[in-house]
């Protein structure tokens, strides 16, 4: 070996050493909770560590040893250790951890994971704890929300649902550039047909714009529009029809033609974004917040943010995105589904092989209590919040002040700093309640927001979503299989009809194909389960 190579190797090794020292120094930061005094409120005799698997969030990065966690330890004697998985890789990592049965005491899982893994036996069966004595706080919700019975798998409860605290729900809704309607004296569209005409009119006035844009492709387009247009799509085709009172596989119905025809008309008239099948969320955002797009039908809450960024551009100072009441569809209905209001789609499961099950159950019950909820949503009394005369927690303005100009928003910065609310380990969780409170306290609340919530809350078209009935393991496997087949076939069909490559009448053959693949059986599985859950 000559000198050059030797030198190079020595240098590289030296760098590696240096860096690893820095690294070792860095990992020391994860210190413990420090000194403690045992209080009467403790749920355990000795300080006990409970580990929790959580998904990280870009808006609110989750850190360990945040004030709320410290406070939980102080009051309960339980040290929470979060194992945080990057948001983008959460599904893969969680699946590997569960499949190798090498996971923390508690884990955040998606709704579909519960029936999938429950029969295997890695989740602790929970019904044994659901009673007045063991879990008084959870029990009160169990009684209050009979819908929770739908979470049972083969008659057993395997996951604790996150219960929402004072939630204002919105949902998918049509949001349009209100300022342009006013400027040109265009009336708010009352039907979906009129909506197309209005967008066409705007397109003629502003030929360089894309009137109607969306995100994340065709399935999102169908998710957002189908129910309003008289059929439905749910997450993957199967949806609960509140008017019919039963589960229907949307794409395999005659009504679905109305959805495709409307989208096809929007496409052919140049209203719908020609790139509708490929547009990403980021592109949608940049189109709408730069004035290039004028309308979207998706999470209507986005409008407030688009308005804010749009108004910063010279010439757009008066621009406003505002939701319009749900228009009437071709069947004469005005209907829409809001987001979940009381029972959210976040679930926590307990590891059946955990050594601290007792402590875990006690802690979870404590988090369902009012005080536990206060700590896990408002942080530390005297530091970040105080109780008002009615005994309700309220943030301290002196604490909030430091987050006035925080990014991405004041309230997310507060959540991150304290380690609180829905995206953290929180079972009776605030979302809109704390959000509104923080924004109002800091004076960030504006008229557009007020008007927005006014319209959403007063629109009778919205109904809360139906919680899917509990399926048996067998039913759940069968329905996943059928759905998989249906999705593979249908995904290749939708765009042909939206783009007008196939005439709408040919959809009948697609319906026939869906029926062959078991669309009706799928409906039956769900409707049987629905009937069963009603009779409990």
């Amino acid at each position, binding site marked *: *070996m000559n000198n050059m190579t030797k030198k190079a190797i020595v240098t590289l090794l030296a760098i590696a050493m240096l860096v690893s020292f820095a690294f070792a120094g860095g990992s020391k930061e994860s210190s413990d909770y420090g000194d403690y005094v045992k209080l009467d409120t403790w749920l355990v005799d000795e300080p006990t560590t409970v580990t929790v698997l959580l998904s990280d969030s870009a808006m609110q990065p989750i850190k360990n040893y945040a004030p709320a966690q410290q406070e939980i330890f102080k009051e309960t004697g339980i040290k929470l250790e979060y194992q945080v998985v990057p948001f983008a890789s959460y599904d893969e990592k969680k699946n590997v951890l569960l499949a190798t049965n090498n996971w923390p005491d508690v884990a955040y899982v998606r709704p579909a994971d519960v029936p999938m893994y429950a029969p295997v036996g890695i989740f602790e069966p929970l019904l044994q704890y659901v009673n007045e004595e063991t879990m008084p706080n959870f029990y009160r919700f169990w009684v209050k929300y009979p819908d929770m019975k739908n979470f049972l798998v083969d008659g057993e409860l395997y996951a604790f649902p996150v219960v929402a605290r004072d939630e204002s729900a919105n949902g998918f809704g049509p949001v349009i550039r209100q300022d342009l309607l006013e400027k040109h004296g265009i009336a708010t569209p009352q039907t979906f047909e009129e909506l197309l005409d209005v967008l066409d009119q705007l397109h003629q006035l502003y030929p360089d714009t894309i009137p109607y844009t969306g995100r994340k492709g065709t399935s999102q387009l169908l998710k957002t529009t189908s129910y309003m247009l008289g059929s439905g799509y749910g997450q993957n085709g199967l949806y609960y029809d509140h008017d019919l009172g039963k589960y229907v596989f949307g794409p395999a119905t005659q009504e679905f033609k109305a959805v495709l025809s409307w989208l096809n008309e929007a496409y052919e008239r140049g209203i719908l974004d020609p790139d509708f099948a490929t547009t990403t969320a980021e592109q949608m955002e940049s189109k709408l917040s730069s004035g290039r797009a004028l309308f979207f039908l998706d999470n209507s809450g986005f409008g407030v943010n688009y308005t804010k960024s749009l108004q910063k551009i010279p010439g757009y100072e008066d621009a406003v995105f505002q939701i319009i009441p749900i228009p009437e569809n071709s069947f004469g209905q005005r209907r829409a589904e809001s987001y979940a209001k009381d029972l959210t789609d976040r679930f926590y499961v307990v590891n059946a092989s955990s050594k601290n099950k007792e402590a875990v159950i006690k802690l979870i019950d404590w988090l369902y209590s009012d005080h536990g909820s206060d700590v896990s949503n408002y942080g530390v009394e005297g530091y970040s919040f105080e109780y008002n005369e009615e005994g309700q927690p309220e943030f301290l303005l002196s604490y909030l002040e430091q987050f006035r100009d925080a990014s991405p928003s004041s309230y997310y910065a507060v959540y991150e700093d304290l380690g609180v609310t829905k995206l953290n380990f929180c079972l009776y969780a605030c979302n809109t309640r704390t959000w509104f409170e923080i924004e109002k306290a800091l004076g960030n609340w504006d008229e557009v927001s007020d008007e927005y919530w006014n319209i959403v809350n007063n629109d009778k078209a919205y109904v809360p979503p139906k919680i899917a009935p509990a399926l048996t393991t067998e039913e759940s496997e069968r329905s996943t299989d059928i759905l998989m087949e249906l999705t593979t076939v249908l995904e290749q069909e939708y765009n042909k009809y939206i783009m007008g490559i196939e005439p709408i009448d040919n959809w009948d053959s697609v319906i026939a194909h869906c029926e062959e693949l078991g669309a009706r059986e799928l409906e039956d599985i769900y409707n049987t389960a629905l009937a069963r859950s009603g009779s409990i």
Partner: protein
Amino acid sequence: MEKQHKKLISRTGNALFDIVTYVILTVLGFITLYPMWYILIVSVSSAQHINLGDISFWPRGLNFEAYKIVFENEKIWRAYANTILYTVSGTALQVILTAMCAYPLSRPDFYGRRILSIFTTLTMFISGGMIPLYLVIMNLHMINTIWAIILPPAISTYNMIVMRTSFQAIPHSLAESAYLDGANDIQIFAKIILPLSKAILATMTLFYAVAHWNSFFPAMLYLNDQAKYPVQVLMRDIIISGDMTGDTGDVTGSLNIVATNYKYAVIIISMIPILFVYPFLQKHFTKGVLLGAVKG
């Protein structure tokens, strides 16, 4: 006369050949460079121009806000240190092990060479999959340690084969003469073969280093402690999650949390160090390394 004519033709042919070569390479260079340039100029442009999509060749609304945010992010710095640690230690280990594996297999007189070649090549095609490998690493108690990052990919069979091919090109006579001087195979490997293979060693170092630098999946899978994550895990999260916010049930909606220029700034910053390694290694690609040795 005729000879002169031929010379003339070859000269003009030469010039033409040169021109064509240069033109093709310049076009290629432009095509590959432009997207990189684009990422760079977007990272220093203002959000409004990015939204309007009117940036093409020069930054508009020049500002370095995005970089300021990145530099202020402690998490990214720590991830950076981790990446360097994993890359340097991982690459050193990989190059050494790969050479150790490739050299015997390059020797025509190595008994068992065919069996061992098949033994190694097979692994390129057969794998037990993610879960069994995870279980093996778990049973070795390597989860959440640096070993889970640097040991499993220690030899890339693909690279090993490339290295073996390159070792084969070294005349065996060199080894023969060393035998006569009383050297054993390990000494020949360390003192003759490796110094003669600087070009391929440099190439392998670069290949491994870049692969390590860009890899995120093992880190995501085997590391549980956020403080141990490399840059790529964070970067992927920054890039992808912008696309996933405001899903159903999320009342709050999108908040422009990950501005495009921030995203691009992270991409640029994550690329810089490895770009600096390249010219250093490129020196070793110089012609005639091998020839010089044979002649001398």
